């Protein structure tokens, strides 16, 4: 599991919708976000507010997986992050 950290600069409170999609074919993505939404308070300073969302990698097959994480707000803010996964055979 890893955290995707991003800085919220908007000077009003909002809620980001979290979406994870597979980009290397159809089917269920090997990546999952721990939450469906991320609430953000208004950023008072120009430094913004650091937020994060945890992404879990749960591979079903051996090999590479690719996906994309997208966070969108109703105001049109958008953050995206490419996800790369590599799974190997389980160790005894």
């Amino acid at each position, binding site marked *: 599991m890893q955290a995707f950290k991003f800085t919220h600069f908007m000077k009003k409170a909002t809620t980001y919708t979290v979406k994870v999609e597979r980009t290397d074919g159809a089917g269920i993505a090997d990546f999952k976000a721990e939450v469906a939404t991320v609430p953000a308070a208004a950023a008072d300073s120009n430094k913004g507010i650091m937020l994060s969302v945890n992404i879990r990698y749960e*591979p079903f097959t*051996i090999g590479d997986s690719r996906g994309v994480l997208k966070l969108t707000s109703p105001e*049109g803010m958008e953050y995206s992050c490419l996800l790369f996964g590599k799974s190997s055979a389980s160790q005894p």
Partner: protein
Amino acid sequence: MAMRAGVYKMTCTFKVESTGEYVVYKVNVTVVESEDQHEIDLFSAIRESVSQGVVIENPTNQQVVINQSQFTIGNEYVEVTPEELTLKPRESREFKISFRPLMVSESQCDLVLKNPILGDFKYKLNLKGTAPTSQRSLAFKCALGQD
């Protein structure tokens, strides 16, 4: 030189000392607001910041203090620094206009500095947010059956 808009009235008398002859002129000067002084382009990738310096000149013989409350800005993501600028007589100094766009878009806004001594300074800002310059990524590695 008038710093502020308004009507200035004065009387000017030319006198010949030896004969006492004189002629009087009543002068009315109407000073109007200046047009937009500058157009400033502030273009940046979204969530990054761009800034540009603007020089203010103090042609008077008195010290002038410019603080942030004297600025009116039509966009909440445009900022002016420093918080306070002190100009000595006949001195020029620079303040900085910064813009951090949050969305890919283009817009315009006005920035006006109203100083009680130096008068009004108007600027038109062309604001543009462009696509991000970098793409973030996360890499995961694990054995099957784990996470």
